[in-house]
């Protein structure tokens, strides 16, 4: 067939890579010794579809290779072979090899044929077969010896067999390779042309195969249609019927419909396969495509429908408007606003994907890495269904990898060390994700050795990042590990220790408008907490007024707002103002000074102070008024101008004016540089620690 197979090929690759991911994660879930039958089935099914697809698309190397894998899986499934660590590792290696082969096929590149051959040999050794046997028998049991006569096969396809991409002609061709073939067509069920559904198949065949083929060889030909047809294979001359494949009795077809299968029918079948009707785990890693759950699209369509109705109502109102209908107009406008907001929310939701897409790679990585480092690590994951923006997800992948690698390499100790410390042999790395306000929080925690702050301090002094005499807070010391080139690892391995990575981690997270914090306790473990905005385009904002201007504070950075009480204000060194809030001393930043505005009043007493938090630090911002809260669309300042300290972007308010969005972390940083506060910040935080 010469019609364009490319699009189907793409779908096939997409599905195959998903299938490989499924195989991989299921293999990692297999309990050695006590394997769950359903898990093995899952792996088997995935391998099976890859084999089928690759055979259909002429990727014979992949299908032959996958066949050996499948054979091993089949024996495991039937309980003929124990699920051992070695077998699982071999299967994992095979999955890698299949992925390489498929990638090579997709990109037109070369895969490592030697490696594939080596793994094939390994598989065959495990299977106890002579190396080089091209089509291994699926099962040695049953009446499988060659009869010397041949087989009588009756094939009655279910109506929808073609939709799975199976073509009887292909099967017949394969049978032809096994011996002399006689095919008899039974077209009695063919309906009148008017009733004909061209995508369904309603003819059946009686086949006689003469030759030395074994039952297993014949069965293999029909591997793909198992469950999609009724198949009887009996040795020639034997009258008894052996039912081999009949699982889906419900699929029997309405008797009036029949179709003549032409080669073209396969196109219809493939069209179906290519259409995005299968939902399942969405999203592909490649360029800019996204698979969206159908219910999200439906919600969107409903919303647009409502918008159209509102629009036509307003239009009608507008053509015959007089002041008596003002209330109606306002009501209509209110409805329009609701529609717009809902529409906006659903459009944003389309870009939201569960974070499991970022998490999925970790089981394998942890498995490989722990073996390489001779450590025992268990990976726990929770909150995989937490959704976040696709763009954010793509950019958070690498930082997460770095952090997990670090946890395993630096965090979790060797089994011996763990035993000596009175811990269980197996260390735990826990990935957790959840929503908090408008943020997504991702935690990577381990129960390892923790971070030795004295060692970091020493290293920091060595590298000149700290002076010997500096008295700094613990947070400041832990922050050093994010410095470029900073590493305390004694041996540089290919896993970590080069000191690149952590600075990249922090930079990537900052670029996304997020923060990363460390919590660690020596001997108990370390937790990295990443906070990210759910989306990059829209932000929940608190509008505040300073002088004549309106500014926007991200709602998520606000801790609380209060009216200043005179006796809680302290002045340090005659210059810096701090506010005592419970047990904390917070620097007061007079925003009007920072922004060059004329305030309503310079009096602190009774003025509004907004406590904000960023980068783990808190300050109080003095504002003239708190206005309303609203969602704002973030517009970049940098596209036409440049990055401005303390400002993360701008937005356009309802009246068309531009309002600036404050960058809280930047404000906190720059507030240190302001003359009134310089040099006192450390003093305050030290004091605060003492007070706490």
């Amino acid at each position, binding site marked *: 067939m010469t019609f364009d197979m490319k699009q189907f090929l793409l779908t096939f690759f997409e599905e195959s890579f998903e299938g490989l991911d499924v195989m991989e994660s299921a293999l990692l879930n297999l309990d050695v010794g006590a394997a769950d039958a359903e898990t093995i089935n899952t792996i088997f099914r995935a391998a099976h579809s890859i084999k089928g697809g690759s055979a259909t698309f002429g990727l014979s190397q992949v299908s032959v290779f996958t066949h050996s894998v499948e054979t091993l899986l089949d024996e495991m499934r039937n309980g003929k072979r124990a699920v051992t660590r070695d077998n699982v590792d071999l299967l994992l290696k095979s999955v890698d090899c299949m992925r390489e082969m498929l990638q090579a096929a997709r990109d037109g590149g070369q895969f490592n044929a030697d490696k594939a051959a080596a793994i094939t040999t390994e598989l065959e050794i495990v299977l106890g077969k002579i190396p080089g046997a091209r089509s291994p028998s699926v099962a040695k049991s049953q009446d499988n010896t060659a009869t010397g006569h041949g087989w009588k096969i009756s094939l009655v396809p279910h109506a929808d067999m073609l939709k799975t991409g199976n073509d009887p002609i292909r099967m017949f061709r394969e049978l032809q390779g096994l011996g002399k073939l006689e095919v008899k067509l039974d077209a009695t069920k063919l309906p009148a042309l008017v009733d004909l559904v061209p995508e369904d198949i309603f003819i059946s065949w009686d086949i006689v195969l003469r030759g030395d083929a074994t039952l297993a060889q014949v069965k293999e030909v029909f591997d793909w249609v198992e469950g999609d047809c009724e198949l009887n294979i009996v040795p020639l001359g034997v009258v008894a019927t052996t039912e081999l494949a009949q699982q889906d009795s419900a699929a029997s077809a309405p008797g009036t419909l029949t179709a003549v299968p032409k080669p073209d029918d396969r196109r219809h079948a493939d069209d179906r396969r290519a259409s995005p009707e299968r939902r399942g785990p969405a999203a592909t890693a490649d360029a800019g495509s996204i698979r969206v759950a159908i219910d999200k699209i439906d919600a969107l369509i409903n919303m647009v429908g409502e918008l159209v109705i509102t629009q036509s109502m307003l239009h009608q109102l507008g053509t015959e408007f007089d002041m008596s209908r003002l209330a109606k107009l306002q009501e209509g406008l209110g409805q329009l606003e609701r529609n717009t907001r809902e529409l906006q929310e659903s459009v944003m939701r389309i870009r939201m994907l569960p974070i499991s897409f970022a998490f999925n790679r970790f089981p394998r990585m942890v498995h490989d890495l722990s073996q390489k480092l001779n450590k025992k690590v268990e990976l726990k994951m929770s909150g995989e269904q937490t959704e976040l923006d696709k763009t954010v997800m793509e950019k958070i992948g690498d930082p997460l990898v770095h952090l997990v690698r670090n946890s395993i390499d630096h965090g979790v100790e060797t089994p011996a060390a763990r035993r000596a410390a009175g811990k269980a042999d197996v260390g735990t790395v826990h990935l957790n994700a959840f929503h908090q306000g408008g943020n997504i929080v991702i935690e990577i925690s381990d129960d390892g050795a923790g971070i030795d702050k004295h060692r970091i301090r020493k290293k920091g002094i060595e590298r000149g990042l700290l002076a010997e005499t500096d008295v700094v807070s613990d947070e400041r010391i832990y922050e050093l590990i994010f410095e470029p080139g900073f590493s305390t690892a004694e041996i540089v391995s290919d896993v970590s220790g080069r000191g690149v990575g952590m600075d990249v981690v922090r930079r990537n997270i900052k670029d996304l408008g997020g923060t990363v914090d460390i919590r660690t306790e020596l001997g108990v473990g370390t937790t990295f907490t990443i906070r990210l905005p759910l989306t990059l385009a829209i932000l929940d904002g608190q509008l505040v007024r300073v002088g004549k201007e309106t500014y926007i504070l991200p709602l998520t950075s606000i801790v609380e707002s209060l009216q200043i009480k005179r006796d809680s204000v302290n002045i340090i060194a005659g210059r810096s103002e701090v506010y005592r809030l419970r047990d904390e001393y917070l620097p007061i930043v007079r925003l009007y000074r*920072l922004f060059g505005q004329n305030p309503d009043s310079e009096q602190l007493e009774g003025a509004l102070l907004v406590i904000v938090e960023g980068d783990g630090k808190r300050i109080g911002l003095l504002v003239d008024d708190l206005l309303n809260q609203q969602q704002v669309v973030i517009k970049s*300042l940098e*596209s036409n101008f440049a990055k401005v300290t303390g400002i993360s972007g*701008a937005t356009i308010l309802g009246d068309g004016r*531009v309002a600036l969005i404050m960058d809280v972390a930047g404000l906190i940083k720059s507030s240190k540089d302001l003359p009134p506060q310089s040099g006192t910040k450390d003093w305050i935080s030290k004091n605060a620690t003492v007070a706490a």
Partner: protein
Amino acid sequence: MSAAQRNDAEMASTVQQDTEQYLTFILAGQEYGVDILRVQEIKGWDKVTPLPNTPEYVRGVINLRGTIVPIIDLRQRFRLETISYGPTTVVIMLKVLSEAGQRIMGVVVDGVSEVYNVSANDIKAAPELGEHVDAEVVRGLATVDGKMIILVDIDKLLAESSLLAVKK
């Protein structure tokens, strides 16, 4: 292509090669010119949203049909005496090219003047201009109808580095 068409095309290209069109504006009595192909539009002065932590001459940003556009006061940029904005005060929206790509910026001037055809031969290199104007932002001087026009290189004038100079 017929001979006549080719002729036309050649003539057009000669015109393009030899003369450029400049939009001129007035700043403290002096006429300045910018390449007219860089002018996106001309607007009246309107209120801006001030930007903190930027030099004095960055007046702020405005909403230009949904994008945020910075506005630069050219009198302040050239360290001329400032005047209050009047009815002739206009903002010229310019397309500024930089390594990062094209940016739109507005410059506040006393008023727009004319559009001149200036041939390349008429452009003279700028002499030492004293302390009011940075020599590097002047592309050259042109004489049209007996008047001197200062041709401004807006890419240099509005380069990012100059916009972020520390506020004194």
